[in-house]
């Protein structure tokens, strides 16, 4: 059995507009199970997320995924390496319906050339049909078939988040990076969301989550990393983190960020 | 050395024109393609009216009329579609450019027009050979731009204009009279276009076709100057004018426009936000 597909963040430093956003960040994120990245506002979670997914380059340091050095690679190459992220505001592709959004992800990018519609028309047509059918299947399995023909702008926030995750999942990632998936969700929606994330992890896709909602995140994750002012101040299981003196200091009384909107 | 003078002249005409364009871009937030046509309109009006009423009156009337037409267009054409976004405004301006172009053809015919005004004989002043007319033009440019600077910096309406330019929504909330700002900006831009057009026509000539060429240079200077304050745009226009004319020392004058656009493209590739703006590179380029 191959070693688990780990995501290694090694000695990453990044400055942002004069501020040191990340200081010597080191962490190893397991390729299986759910890992959480938490920290107060401005701790650098989003910056680290962006660096990992290719939306920013570290000043120093490396990002290694499954043995492959992804540092400084453009976003599309990181995505193609299997490291897929979601976006906090799930706008999606606005000119396409929900099912078309998902089908776009399933169809892949090998026919994205101007000659493809001419030299490979049959292949293109059957690919699109297959992707379309597969997209409907995905929606049905997620109990969301009624959303299929809707416009992206026509979705409730909770549904939009769901579609966002389903679509990025349809890219067959090896690790999924979830950017604030629980933001602006009701308690019920968060329950459903947790279920979905657990399913994803069970299918063998590693998950890295950043979110402000502590109870959601601590309940879900097997491993937690805590950032403060750009540095990792604690790493461990949710229980260990809960007892960590530094963490308690930040989350005085544990009520910062535990609200669900 | 005279090339430097020509460059200054070209640059100052371009500066006057582009500051009006930039004013519109910063407050009304779209690219007013028809600005080039307004320049030609002002020039042609001045020539025609100058023949009837004498040059000074002709010029004054031309500037006033162009300014008034600009305000009317702003109110009747652009305000009603403002909520539709910058692109609708851009293409409305394209439509207006065609209409103004048509109006000029109808009124003035398609011949080349020249001002019957003597620039005077060139006399050596320092390292330059200057004609008195050219000095007048430079002075006009300085006065006009100075006046604009004073308007923006020292008057109440100028302060309002700057407020709208930096943050329109906030200015509206703060109670700034947006409509008055809008009308003033249109009037000033129209006047500046006319003046710049007249300056160009005095130095060379003008025809109904000229507008299409003017807008190219104005766009170039505006983009080079960046979306900061008007000063950047003025500086960019001067730089453009000087480089264009100095380049004819080294290469054929026919290549002048190519030099101008080559500079534009070159600068954009190195510094996509323009020469003098404070925007971050990320916002302008991929």
């Amino acid at each position: 059995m191959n070693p688990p597909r780990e995501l290694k963040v090694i000695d990453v430093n990044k400055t942002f507009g004069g501020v040191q956003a990340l200081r010597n960040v080191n962490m190893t994120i397991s390729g299986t199970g759910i890992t959480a990245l938490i920290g107060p506002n401005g701790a650098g979670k989003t910056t680290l997320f962006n660096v990992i997914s290719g939306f920013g380059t570290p000043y120093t340091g490396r990002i290694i995924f499954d043995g492959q050095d992804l540092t400084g690679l453009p976003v599309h190459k990181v995505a193609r390496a299997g490291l897929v992220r979601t976006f906090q505001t799930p706008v999606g592709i606005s000119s396409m319906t929900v099912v078309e959004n998902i089908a776009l992800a399933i169809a892949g990018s090998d026919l994205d050339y101007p000659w493809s519609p001419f030299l490979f028309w049959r292949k293109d047509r059957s690919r699109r049909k297959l992707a379309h059918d597969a997209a409907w299947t995905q929606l049905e399995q997620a109990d969301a078939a009624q959303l299929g023909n809707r416009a992206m702008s026509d979705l409730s926030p909770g549904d939009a988040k769901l579609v966002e995750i389903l679509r990025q999942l349809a890219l067959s990632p090896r690790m999924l990076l979830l950017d604030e998936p629980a933001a602006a969700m009701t308690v019920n929606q968060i329950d459903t969301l947790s279920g979905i994330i657990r399913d994803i992890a069970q299918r063998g896709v590693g998950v890295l989550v950043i979110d402000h909602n502590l109870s959601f995140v601590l309940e879900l994750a097997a491993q937690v990393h805590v950032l403060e002012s750009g540095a990792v101040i604690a790493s461990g299981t949710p229980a260990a983190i809960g007892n960590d003196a530094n963490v308690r200091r930040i989350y005085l009384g544990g009520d910062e960020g535990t609200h669900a909107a | 050395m005279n090339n430097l003078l020509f460059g200054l002249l070209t640059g100052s005409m371009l500066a006057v024109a582009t500051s009006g364009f930039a004013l519109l871009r910063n407050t009304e937030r779209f690219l007013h393609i028809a600005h080039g046509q307004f320049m030609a309109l002002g020039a042609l009006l001045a020539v025609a009216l100058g023949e009837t009423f004498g040059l000074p009156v002709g010029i004054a009337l031309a500037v006033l009329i162009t300014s008034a037409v600009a305000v009317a267009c702003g109110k009747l054409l652009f305000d009603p579609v403002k909520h539709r976004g910058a692109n609708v405004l851009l293409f409305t301006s394209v439509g207006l450019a065609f209409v103004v172009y048509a109006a000029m053809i109808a009124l003035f015919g398609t011949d080349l027009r020249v001002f019957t005004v003597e620039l005077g004989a060139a006399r050596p002043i320092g390292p330059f050979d200057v004609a008195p007319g050219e000095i007048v033009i430079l002075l006009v440019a300085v006065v006009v731009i100075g006046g604009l600077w004073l308007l923006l910096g020292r008057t109440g309406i100028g302060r309002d204009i700057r407020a709208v330019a930096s943050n329109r929504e906030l200015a509206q909330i703060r109670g700034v009279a947006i409509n008055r700002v809008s009308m003033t900006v249109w009037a000033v831009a129209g006047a500046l276009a006319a003046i710049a057009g007249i300056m160009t026509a005095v130095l060379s000539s003008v025809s109904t076709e000229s507008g299409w060429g003017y807008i190219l240079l104005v766009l170039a200077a505006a983009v080079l100057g960046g979306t900061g304050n008007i000063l950047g745009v003025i500086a960019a226009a001067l730089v453009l004018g000087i480089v264009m004319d100095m380049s004819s020392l080294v290469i054929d004058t026919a290549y002048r426009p190519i030099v101008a656009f080559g500079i534009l493209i070159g600068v954009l590739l190195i510094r996509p936000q323009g020469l003098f703006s404070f925007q971050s590179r990320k916002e302008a380029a991929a």
Partner: protein
Amino acid sequence: MISIEFLVTIATLAFVFAMAAQLLNLEAAWGGMWDLGIAGLIGVGAYSYVLLTSSPDAAVPGAGLSWPLGMLGAGLITAAVAALIGWPALRLRGEYFLITTFAFAEILRQIIIIRRDITGGTFGLTSIVKPFESQFTIDGYPYVRLGLTVLLTVIVWMVCSRIATSSYGASLRAARDNEPLAMAMGKRINVLRLSTYATVGLMCGLFVGPAYSWILGALVPSVFSSHLTFTLWAGLVIGGLGSRFGPIVGALLLTGASELVRLVHVPDQFADLHAAAHPALVGVLLIAVLRWRPDGLLTESGTFARLRRRHSRPDTARATPVSTPTVPRIAHEPSA
């Protein structure tokens, strides 16, 4: 008296513009690239074609190739020029891309004027090789030319339509709608956009340029000015950005209306008014459409809704109208 020949010539011109408007639609509406330099590409196509097909003995010597080879050569040359321009230009966004393409087109036009030894400068090229010309009478040929132009327009339509419905087209539109997301889905934005721009160049050189040269008496650089670019944009906006038929409808309507206005015979003292009628009509139509029907006569969402109905599940709910950026933001105020 409206002569049939005149109508045929207008119709031919209208179809040339319809071809060009479709290509503009492809890159601007579906690709999100607001190109103000299309006249430059058409000019390169036209000049390449004429220079490749002119006889070596002509006043301005050419390569003497047959017209099909000339079209092919023009296509390749224009595609190469487009790739050369696009590669730096596409690194810029929004109004910066706009002005760069604008600048490039003007540079191309100036080069044509300056290198009069190759291009005939402002006097232009007059010996233009037209397909099948020798096989028809002078009276009959305009019809052949019209038929050929219509055929080419249909071919361009088929190419653009095929692109629109393909995976390539979907990826292109995704890049237009949400660039960071498209990247995060593994799409190579640069390749998508540059290849589209080069394809537009290819078709300008293969079809539009040659077809335009066939109806011009002489090929002069002033034809390929910003005036042409804006006229094509007007036709596109009026017909409807992003729809498959809109560009054709818009171009035909605009050219037809503005040229037919010229038919009205006026006494000489109104000659200026006469010349003014064409641009006046273009301007008024454009302003009116933007005011009262800003999406154009036909819309992108309409086009894709119709295409969508072929694929959607019959048993699920009816599709709700999808928001399409039919007059898409070009990030005039650069934003994320």
